[in-house]
């Protein structure tokens, strides 16, 4: 019996030692957290990384320092995410060819988006029978419906909507793959707020956001009017809140052309 106890004791000690050896082995593996890289690869990593970002002791189970890891985790935590996802039709903006031509440019933008092809702005101007002056709302509706199959367009006075029903209308129209043409006074849009003149203008809403407040908190639009000198970066496709977009048509005599 004593012999058995002695054997058991030796075995136990032996196993514990193995545990310790294994632990050491594990530790030594985690220390070399870059052991999967070749020497060449390590050299490249060292060249490409800021030395301040590295900790080759692998104290954090990576080659990066604690400061970098924490910094990366908190990098954009203060930038509020305005939406979970967006539904956008990605309408291409075309610069309007005449000072009064935003309506014709909007027609081109919408038809190009729906059909993949479109005529020139001047051709639409001619077809709509308003050559030399701005597009008329119901004629925009007519010409759009002439050229599309499926969901058709109608027009509605902007100030018959509430904010919520306006958002619903935009969501429905975009869901039907129909960009919304806004016959607006654009000064409520953030880009136009500094203008000292009131701007009567057509622009096209081609998307909306979805976030904790629901759909349409933000809307995306393309503007045929605002364009810098050959520089499309600043002007073209923009974002405004649903409120700002609504306010641009929630005015007597302004319309929304939608599906």
């Amino acid at each position, binding site marked *: 019996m004593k012999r058995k106890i002695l054997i058991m004791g030796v075995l136990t000690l032996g196993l514990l030692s193995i545990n310790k050896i294994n632990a050491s082995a594990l530790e030594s593996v985690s220390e070399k957290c870059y052991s999967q890289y070749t020497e060449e690869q390590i050299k490249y990593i060292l060249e490409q990384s800021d030395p301040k970002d590295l900790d080759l002791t692998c104290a954090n189970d990576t080659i990066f320092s604690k400061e970098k890891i924490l910094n990366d985790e908190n990098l954009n935590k203060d930038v509020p995410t305005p939406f979970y996802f967006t539904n956008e039709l990605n309408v291409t903006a075309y610069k309007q060819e005449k000072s009064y031509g935003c309506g014709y440019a909007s027609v081109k933008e919408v038809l190009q988006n729906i059909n993949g092809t479109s005529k020139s702005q001047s051709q639409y101007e001619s077809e709509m029978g308003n050559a030399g002056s701005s597009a008329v709302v119901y004629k925009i509706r007519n010409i759009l419906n002439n050229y599309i199959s499926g969901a058709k367009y109608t027009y509605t006075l902007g100030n018959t909507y509430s904010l919520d029903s306006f958002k619903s209308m935009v969501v429905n129209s975009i869901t039907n793959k129909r960009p919304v043409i806004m016959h607006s006074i654009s000064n409520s849009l953030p880009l136009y707020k*500094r203008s*000292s*003149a*009131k701007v009567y203008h057509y622009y096209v809403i081609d998307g909306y956001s979805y976030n904790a407040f629901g759909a349409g908190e933000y809307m995306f639009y393309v503007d045929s009017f605002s364009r810098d000198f050959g520089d499309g970066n600043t002007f073209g496709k923009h974002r405004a809140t649903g409120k700002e977009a609504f306010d641009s048509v929630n005015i007597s005599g302004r319309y929304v052309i939608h599906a």
Partner: protein
Amino acid sequence: MHKKNIIILLVVCVLIVSLLFISFNNKKSANKNEKTDNHESLNVNNKKDNNDKKAINYNIEVDELKLSESLKSNINKNYTYQITHYNDNKYNGVINKPVDVGLGQTKALFTYDVNTNTFKQKQTNFKGSVTSFIEKDNNYYYVEINTITIDKREYYSWSLIKNNKELSDRKVLLKGNCSLFTLFPELIVDEENQDLYFFSSIDRVDESNNLLSQNIYIYHFNKENFELLKELNYKEQNEYIGSIWSTKLVNKKIFFVMKTKDKGSKIYLYDTENNKIETLYEDSKNIFDFEILDNYLIITLLDESENTLIKVYKDEEKLIEEKLNGISNIYKISNNKLLIESSSKYKIYNTKYNEITDIELPKDLDLYRYSIKSYKEDTLIIMKDFDDKLIKIAEK
């Protein structure tokens, strides 16, 4: 006996292996907990930092504009108007007939004397839309905008007009053409020194809208006329002005934004007293707007996604850099406060505390619907058809 020993040995081995397994897991958990504890304590510290921020409370008072009654009773409700200039004693503005697209067709100019509560409007056949109007020394000075075709391309044709109060003696003082709506010229008033300046640009573009030439002109009002102070041409440096909207006059210095060849931008300062130009600020991003509060410079920059970065500098030292959603507009409330409008929400930057804080507006005030401008210390004027107001924002 032999079998019994084997069984005992097996049991002991199982126990030992179990012990090993448990101890290994415990070690892993201990490491994980250590990490988590550190992270949580970081968050707690952050919260604590937030709690340490001083709570700044603002009092917001909304007042009707004295002009409003006169506007409601004198202007046809089917028309619209723009207030183009104001101070404690008077308002100047234009009355427009709405159009389908473009700028309103101007029908009349109006003036309002605050002290005598006298509203006057004068009509004439304007040769375009009036975008900038001021009454000065018994004359009217205003900018008329029209369109013109040059080399098969449409431009905006602007004219600086001098007229008498009867609008019967129209004289064109200056004129030019610009290709962008954002380059309409501006009359800039220096209330403190009773001075007036005119800032304009003339440009040419090719078929692809690339800039071929651009000249910028700064004029000073002198004895019923405007004298050229400075002509600028930045073609050699590949710099150009994209918008005159953010141009400002502060302490006899005119500040304006230029875009640079590498898609950055600069704020230039023209000193009207010594006729010199300096660079106030330069950035690799697109400067959207800026304001000067005493010796603080606040800048808003737009990135490619049209999100805003707001930066605050004091004596060239950056104090704040903060990201905001979408295009944000800023309005000077006073020499130490700035209103920030971002995605229909509002904040105030206060130099006294060097902080940007959210503010809550009165529930019945949809401020995003209004055009907002500085009025006087602690007060903004907010404008929307027949619903103009003054809002006073002061610390409680």
